[in-house]
């Protein structure tokens, strides 16, 4: 299985070198590509100086657009699976092996989940995550313990589907939509680090907007979406 790690990076000059060097030194068996999402800092410069694999987007597209660029690349290079990986060092590459094992069992998407065997701590952030879990459970009947985890692995069919379609952002509402369409999704317990440098993109207002968008999308919009027949995955018996 050829795996490509897609690492979207927007203004991550403080983290990107450390994160990619860890992968290169300790996990040379995995391919990776940094998608520099029109950063205004030295993200691109540092990548080139260190000889990293990098796709430079000339303008900022946002996470969904940057991630899709990585998936287009994976699709064109005929990779078997893709791992969505954060550039800020929160994700730990030692869990890739477990996720890959799970994917080989025939799942379409494997989520690196913080809460398979562990309980969520009590914080505002986790209230949001829990609401999304409930929303997905209510609309699809399936339980996803960590829908906001940004560490997700996609199989070959998913790579194509994500690469060519509209409204396939790497977000919980897409997970809910795909579950409803019969995709199989598994979770693997992982640990994540706190962010070492830089600031999180989400503040309170943005988080509230994000929650509204996700919940409206999961409860209302995803019910009406029609999947392009060309990409429907075979139901497993």
């Amino acid at each position, binding site marked *: 299985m050829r795996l490509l790690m897609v690492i979207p990076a927007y203004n991550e000059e403080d983290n990107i070198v450390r994160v990619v060097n860890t992968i290169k030194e300790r996990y040379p068996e995995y391919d990776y590509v940094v998608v520099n999402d029109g950063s205004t800092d030295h993200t691109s410069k540092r990548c080139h100086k260190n000889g990293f694999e990098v796709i430079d987007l*000339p*303008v900022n597209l946002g996470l969904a657009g940057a991630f899709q660029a990585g998936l287009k690349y994976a699709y064109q290079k005929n990779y078997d699976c893709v791992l969505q990986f954060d550039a800020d060092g929160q994700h730990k590459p030692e869990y890739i092996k477990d996720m890959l094992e799970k994917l080989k069992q025939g799942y379409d998407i494997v989520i690196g989940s913080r809460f398979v065997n562990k309980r969520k701590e009590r914080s505002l952030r986790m209230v949001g995550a829990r609401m999304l879990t409930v929303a997905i459970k209510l609309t699809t009947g399936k339980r996803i313990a960590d829908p906001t985890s940004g560490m997700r692995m996609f199989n070959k069919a998913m790579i194509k589907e994500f690469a060519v379609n509209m*409204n396939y952002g790497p977000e919980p509402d897409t997970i809910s939509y795909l579950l409803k369409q019969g995709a199989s999704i598994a979770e693997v317990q992982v640990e994540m680090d706190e962010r070492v440098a830089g600031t999180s993109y989400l503040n309170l207002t943005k988080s509230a907007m994000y929650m509204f*968008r996700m919940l*409206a*999308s999961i409860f*209302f*919009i995803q019910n*009406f*979406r029609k999947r392009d027949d060309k990409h429907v995955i075979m139901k497993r018996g």
Partner: protein
Amino acid sequence: MSVALRALLIMMSVGSLVYIVRKIRYSRMQIEYALFWIVLAIIFIVMAVFPQVVYFVCNLMKVMSPVNLVYLFIIAILLLKVFMMTIELSALESKVRELVQQIGINEKEQRDEKGEDNNITGGYKG
């Protein structure tokens, strides 16, 4: 509010809801953009079904006729939307400009690497 106005509000809202949902169904619209129209349609339906809400705000703002408040609300929302769209449009235009410029530069660099432009005449040919 008259029954006719309320019926019109409901009809228009339901109509636009159906239209938007169809657009999403066949992947002709991004979810982020659709949400605005869906929320707006739902607000109109609420106003039409429960006009008490409009009457209440009317009293607060000392507006004579509830229907004026509905107009005011619609005009305000539309102005706001146009304003936001202008901002989005100008961001979009500058992105397109940057993209085109970058493609041009990349192409020139590619040709330079192949050495195709290194003839005496240079510049544009033919």
